C-alpha cells in the first residue's frame, strides 16, 4: 500500500532484532536520496514525535511512470496494510477499495448498485477515475494545441514573407528571361517549382530539427523529473501534417508572388519602367 502521507524516515545504523520489525519496499529515488539498501533498518512514524516503529527495507522498487506524480516530488514506500494501519492507529480503516468484477458484469451498473447500498463512500468505475484524473492533462493538451495554433500562424506568416522575398529577389532574372522570349507561364511554373522545392527541403530540415529537439526534450525532462515518461513524441501524423502544411503554404505563397511577378512589365522588373 502506498503511503500518501509524508513519511519521515531515519536510518538506524544499529542492528535490531528481526522479529520486532516489519518489511517495507522503498521507491528507488527515495532509497537513493536516503542511501538506503535492502536489509537496512529504518524508523517510521506518521509524525516527528511518533517515530517508534522499526522497519527493514526488504525491496527497492521502480514506480510505474505516472504523469500525475512527477511534478509533486513526493516519495513513497509500500508496506503491508495491517502494518500501516497499526502505525497510524486507525485499525480497519482504508482510503479506498479496488473491486474486481466477474466477467460480463457492467461496471456502471455495479457502481450504481454500490452507491445505492450505503452512504459514506462513493464508488467510481475505473473509466470515471481515469477521466477525472486526466483532467489536468486535458488542460495541458488544450494549452499545447493553442500554442501550436499560434506557432503555426507565426510559421505561416514567416513562410509567406520569405517566399515573397525569395521570388521578388528574382525580379532581374525574370526580366532577362522575358527579354529573351521565355513565356510568363514558364517563368511562373519555374518559380512555383522553386517554391515547392524550398518548402520540401525546409520541411525535411524541419523534421530533422524537430526530431533532435524531441530527443533533447525527452532526455532533459526524463533526467529532470527522474522518470521514464516520454514528453515529446513525433508521430507520422504530425510529420505528415507539418509537411503538408509547409508545402501548401509554400506553394500558395510562391504562386501568389510569382503571379505578381509575371504580371509586371519586364522593363519595370528591370528597374527602368
Amino acid at each position, binding site marked *: 500500500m502506498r503511503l500518501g502521507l509524508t513519511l*519521515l524516515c531515519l536510518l538506524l545504523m544499529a542492528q535490531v532484532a528481526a522479529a520486532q520489525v516489519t518489511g517495507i519496499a522503498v521507491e528507488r529515488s527515495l532509497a537513493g536520496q536516503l542511501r538506503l539498501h535492502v536489509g537496512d533498518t529504518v524508523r517510521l512514524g506518521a*509524525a*516527528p514525535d511518533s517515530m517508534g516503529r522499526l522497519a527493514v527495507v526488504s525491496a527497492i522498487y521502480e514506480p510505474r511512470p505516472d504523469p500525475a506524480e512527477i*511534478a509533486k516530488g513526493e516519495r513513497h514506500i509500500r508496506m503491508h496494510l495491517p502494518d500501516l494501519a497499526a502505525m497510524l492507529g486507525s485499525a480497519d480503516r482504508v482510503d479506498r477499495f479496488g473491486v474486481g468484477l466477474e466477467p460480463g458484469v457492467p461496471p456502471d451498473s455495479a457502481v450504481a448498485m454500490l452507491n445505492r447500498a450505503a452512504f459514506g463512500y462513493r464508488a467510481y468505475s475505473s473509466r470515471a477515475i481515469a477521466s477525472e484524473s486526466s483532467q489536468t492533462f486535458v488542460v495541458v493538451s488544450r494549452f499545447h494545441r493553442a500554442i501550436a495554433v499560434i506557432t503555426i*500562424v*507565426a510559421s505561416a506568416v514567416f513562410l509567406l*514573407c520569405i517566399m*515573397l*522575398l525569395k521570388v521578388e529577389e528574382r525580379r532581374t532574372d525574370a526580366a532577362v528571361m522575358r527579354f529573351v522570349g521565355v513565356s510568363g507561364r514558364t517563368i511562373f511554373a519555374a518559380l512555383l517549382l522553386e517554391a515547392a522545392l524550398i518548402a520540401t527541403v525546409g520541411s525535411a530540415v524541419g523534421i530533422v530539427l524537430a526530431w533532435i529537439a524531441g530527443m533533447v526534450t525527452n532526455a532533459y*525532462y526524463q533526467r529532470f523529473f527522474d522518470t521514464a515518461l516520454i514528453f515529446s513524441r513525433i508521430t507520422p501524423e504530425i510529420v505528415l501534417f507539418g509537411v503538408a502544411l509547409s508545402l501548401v503554404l509554400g506553394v500558395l505563397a510562391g504562386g501568389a508572388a510569382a503571379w505578381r511577378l509575371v504580371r509586371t512589365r519586364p522593363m519595370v522588373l528591370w528597374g527602368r519602367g
Partner: protein
Amino acid sequence: MSALAWGVKSLARRPLRTALSLAGIAVAAAMLLDMVMLSGGIDQSFAQLLLSRGYQIRLSPKGTLPFDTEASLSGTSAILATLRHDPAIEAAGAVLGASLYGRTRDSLITVFGYGIQPEAQALYQVTAGKDLVPEDTVGILLSDPAARVLGAGVGDSISLLGRLDPQVAVAGVGRRLVVRGMVHFVYDYRGQPSVATVLAAMQRLAHDGIQDRASLVVVKVRDNQAVERVAAGLRQRFPRLEVNSVADLVGHFRERLVYFRQLSYILGSMSLVVTVLLIATLLTITVNERLGEIATLRAIGVSRATIVRQVFAEGTALILLGATLGILLGLVTARYLDAILTSFPGLPATFSFFVPRADTLSRAGLVLVLTGAVAGLYPAWLAARAPIAATLRAEAT
C-alpha cells in the same frame, strides 16, 4: 529627413512585403510577450493570492504543504499561545479543513468545511451578512456555490454532518447551524462548495474526540521586512512543524509548475529567433535591392555612418510597428491562454498564469528593440561596405 522617417518611407515603398513582415513580427512579439507574462505571472499571482489577507507565514505538519495532505497538527492551542506572545507577530490563527455533508431535503451534499478563528483568519472576505465572532459556535458562513447546492441564504438554518460511517450508514455527529453571512473563499477553485465555522465547532464535526487539531496555522508578522527572520526563528522554535514564508511557498509552487516556466523560456527564445531572422532577411534583401541607391548616396558625400543609421532606422521602424501590434495581439492571446490554464482542476479561481505588468511589458519591448538592432547588424554592415564605383558601374549596365 530623420533616419526614422527615412526608414518608414523606405518600408512604405513595398507595402505587401512590409505588411507581411509586420504580421510576422507581431505574431512573434505576441508570443514573446505571452511567454514573458507566463514566466513571471505564476509567481506573482500566487504570491498575491497568499498575501491577499496579509498573512505571511504558514505552519503545517512536518513534511507537508498547507492542505496538501490530510495530516493535521496537534496541540494547536499551545502553538497559538506561543505565537501570540511573540512581539514580532501581529496575529496568528488556526485553520482546520475537513470534508463534511450538508443535509438537504432528501440527500446529502458533500461540502468542504473550514474551521477558523474569526479574530485571525486568512481564508475569506465577507460579501453579505455578518462575519462570525469567536464565541459563535452555532453560526456558519457559506460560499456562493455552497449556498446554491444547500439552497440556503443568510438567516437560514442548515444541517451539517461529519464523520459518516459507511458500515453503519450513520453520521458520527450532526449540527444545526445558522447562516450568518456569505463569503468569498480566496483559495477555493471555481464552483467549490465551502463552509466555515469557528474552529471549535469544526473540530467537533471533523474529529472524533481528538480536540485541539488544525490543518495549519497562519501568522501575520508586524514588519514585512522581518518575515524571513521570524520564519527562521519559528523553524528553530517548532522543529517538528513545517514553517513556510510566502517566498518559500512560491518556491515550492514554482517547482511544481517548472514545466510552464521552462516552456515559456523556450517559446520566448524561439519567438526572438524568428523575429531576428525575419528582420534580418527583410533588411538584407532591401539593402541588396538598393545597393545602387546606397552607392549613389555615398558618391555624393553621404557618410557610411548615415547609411548604417538609415538601415538601423528601417529595422527600428519595423520592430516598433510590429511590437505595437504584437503587444495588442499578445494581450488578447494571453487572456485566451489564461482561460485554458486556469481551468486546471483544483486551482484557486482567483489565480492567473498571465499577469500583465508595466515592467513585464517594458522588458518585452526592450528585448524586442534590442532584437531589431541585432537583426540590423548584418544588413548595415553590408550597406556600409558596398563598393561605390563597382556598384554604380553594375547599375549602369
